[in-house]
């Protein structure tokens, strides 16, 4: 296991380097000028040139690239061009809402979607199965912002049960945090739930036809035990894989959900930084997301070993 972790961490370095290079080039080669964003359209060419010089944007691309790489190697992600705040501080300041939102969405998904998918497989072709599949089609098809606004309209504005917007840290006021997180978590979780319930169902359907399941039934196990004790653990590997892959889906969903519910997370920070051509912030965020993705993949690999002892690396 330790070898696996060490190997994956070592492999993360070239992955991060590739990500860094691609992000750097994409930003520098796309149209848009941060100097123009800061100084405004009325600024003359001399003023714009001075601002570009202050930001080092007048240097050749290769020089800018290696200067940036050297800074990253020192753990320095630079300062935001606009607010002059260190990039790392900006990311950390906005990290908590995103992490809390993503974790609560995953929690809701696992707690609801896996049992739903399992029951759908267990009651294959029944009305429960069809209802679950219909809900998953809806979850896939309706964009997150539509779901978010509908939930706000029904449960916040009309029923007055939840606040419309904002974030409260669970470390400061857990109950208020729960209120503020309920709707955004549900919004974010719906797409994920659709995916996981479908995968759980198909994976379990396959396993339920296996010989060991028939053997378990022949031994007199009740259906509930057959399903939860014998079938589900054996269907877990593809479910875990999809949960891992779904993290990317969550990251993109977070951007929309944070905007709809006005949560000050890294999703909004990313969009703002891209639109304002705040190069250091975008670069820092992309590295951060890549790191998260690499980390999640590592955790999934570890989870494989735990749920299926036959797997060896």
């Amino acid at each position, binding site marked *: 296991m330790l070898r696996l972790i060490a190997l994956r961490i070592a492999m993360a370095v070239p992955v991060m380097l590739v990500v860094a290079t691609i992000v750097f080039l994409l930003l520098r080669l*796309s*149209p*848009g*000028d941060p100097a*123009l*964003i*800061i*100084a*405004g*359209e*009325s*600024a*003359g*060419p001399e*003023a714009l040139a*001075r*601002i570009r010089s*202050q930001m080092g944007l007048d240097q050749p691309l290769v020089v800018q690239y290696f200067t940036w790489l050297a800074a990253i190697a020192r753990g320095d992600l630079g300062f*935001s061009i*606009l*607010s*002059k*705040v260190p990039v790392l501080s*900006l990311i950390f*300041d*906005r990290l908590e809402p995103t992490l809390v939102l993503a974790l609560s969405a995953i929690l809701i998904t696992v707690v609801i979607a896996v049992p739903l998918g399992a029951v759908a497989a267990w009651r294959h072709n029944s009305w429960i199965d069809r209802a679950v599949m219909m809900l998953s089609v809806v979850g896939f098809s309706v964009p997150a912002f539509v779901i978010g*606004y509908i939930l*706000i*309209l029904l449960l*916040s*504005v009309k029923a*007055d*049960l*939840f*606040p*419309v*917007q*904002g974030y409260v840290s669970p470390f400061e006021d857990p*109950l*208020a945090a*729960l*209120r503020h997180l309920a709707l955004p978590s549900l919004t974010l979780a719906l797409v994920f739930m659709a995916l996981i319930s479908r995968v759980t169902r198909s994976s379990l359907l396959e396993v339920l036809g296996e010989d060991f399941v028939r053997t378990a039934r022949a031994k007199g196990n009740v259906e509930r035990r057959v399903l939860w004790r014998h079938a589900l653990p054996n269907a877990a590997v593809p479910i875990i894989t999809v949960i891992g892959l779904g993290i990317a889906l969550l990251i993109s969903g977070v951007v929309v959900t944070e*905007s*709809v*519910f*006005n949560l*000050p997370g890294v999703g*909004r*920070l990313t*969009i*703002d930084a891209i*639109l*304002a*051509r705040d190069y250091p912030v975008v670069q820092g965020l992309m590295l951060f997301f890549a790191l998260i993705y690499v980390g999640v993949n590592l955790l999934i690999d570890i989870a494989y070993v735990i749920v299926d002892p036959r797997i060896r690396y």
Partner: protein
Amino acid sequence: MLINRREALALSAGALFATMNPARAQGKKTLRLAPHAALRVLDPVVTNAYITRNHAFMVYDTLFAVDAQYRPQPQMVKEWSISPDKLAYTFTLRDGLAFHDGQPVTAADCIASIARWAKKDVIGLRLAAVTTGMEALDDKSFRISLKEPFGPMFEAFARPSSIPLYVMPKRIADLPADKVLEEVVGSGPFRFLPAEFRPGVSWAYERNEKYVPRSEPASGLAGGKVVKVDRVEVVWFPSRQTAINALAKGEIDLLESLNADQRSLLQGNKDVVVRRKAGPSASTIRFNWAQPPFDNLKVRQAVQAVVTQQDYMDASIGDPESYQICPAFFGCGTPLETAIGFPDTGKPNLAKAKALLQEAGYKGEKVVIITPGDVASFAPLAPLTQQLLRQIGIPSEIQTMEWSAFLARRAKPEPVAEGGWNLAHAVFDRIDLISPLGNLNFDARGKAAYTGFVDDPETEALKGRYQRETDPAKQKAIVEEMQKRAYQQVFYIPLGTYFDYEAFRATVSDYVPSAVMVAWDVSKA
């Protein structure tokens, strides 16, 4: 007593929701408002972003300020005098002015602030070019000496937008002009709270207890800035719909801006007041003068012949209460309003346009219209213009991009093949148009000018005359000449002015109607 699982669940849910009422003010009267944009840059001299300007008007005070009729009025200045030859202006500050760090505002602070501003602002640059010296006469008085008269002195000191002249401590104003200021120390009615500044998310102010307001009632940006709340918390909403919902539910008190369509979402809500904003916006068609075919006056005139403000306003705004046909290049309802030269008869003249194109020798070259896809106010303009161009026989292609790329491209005078453009639209707040020297549409210095690259030495000469003229009547006559010439040469085509709306809870009163959102005078029940 035994309870079953359902009852237990209901009780827990009840207990949970009972604690879920919005947080009540903790002793302090706090105004929560949603602005039109997110604050990221704090330095009001380095950027002309409206949100930074609005923030600065909370924190800094100004020597003069425009009132609701856009007339300059003294603000920090108590009295002033002008020498008979109009080459020396002496100003004396009001008593009791102090910065938020406790230091008194002195003449030296004002001189340093003027010097910093004059390196950046378009009118400030003109003032600096004719200034021979600025000297402090004592702690509260200073004199500006000029080599030639400068008519718009008070207009310059009362600049409400682009780059207003904010007074800051000398130690800050003396920092190199290109350094972006990070310390926010003003002498205005609110103190900025740096510890609560989260760039792009939220920020807050506290009442400046020591601020001495003028005795006149608040009017626009002028008059007495009396603060009636303890705190102002500003929260940026990337989704306007969410901000509207938050206002309807009472989670915020004031929403700075919503458009005519969004207004309907709050109509019928007795807890919310919706009001037309004091300052309208003006949309325009801009040509790239540096490239064919719009380097040709007759081609520009051909487009002008078919554009009517009524068509654009009907199509893009719709609600007649929310727009106004405005022939004045310097804004309707302003001191320099004039209709002179306005060619728009309300009916497109296709025959005239086609004849002008023939005279111009136009050979059917395709033109490129650039437009931002992520700015709602621009959305209807490009298709409308394309349709008009098609009607008179100018083929065109719309190229859509996001705002940042649009700004960068619009700043290029090069041909389309080299990353340039032929036609674009621009939208201005009226307060950016009111000054003949500050109105970017009258920047006529060719490729060095504002986007569109208008090249007209005669207009630059007229601006010089306006600058030297101190008689308001003669200034107005020069402005009329400027407007007439701009219509003749088709600097750009104004498409009418339209109003956005502001909304606030019924518990909020005395919210000052102003082109720049201000939080003084506002009280909250």
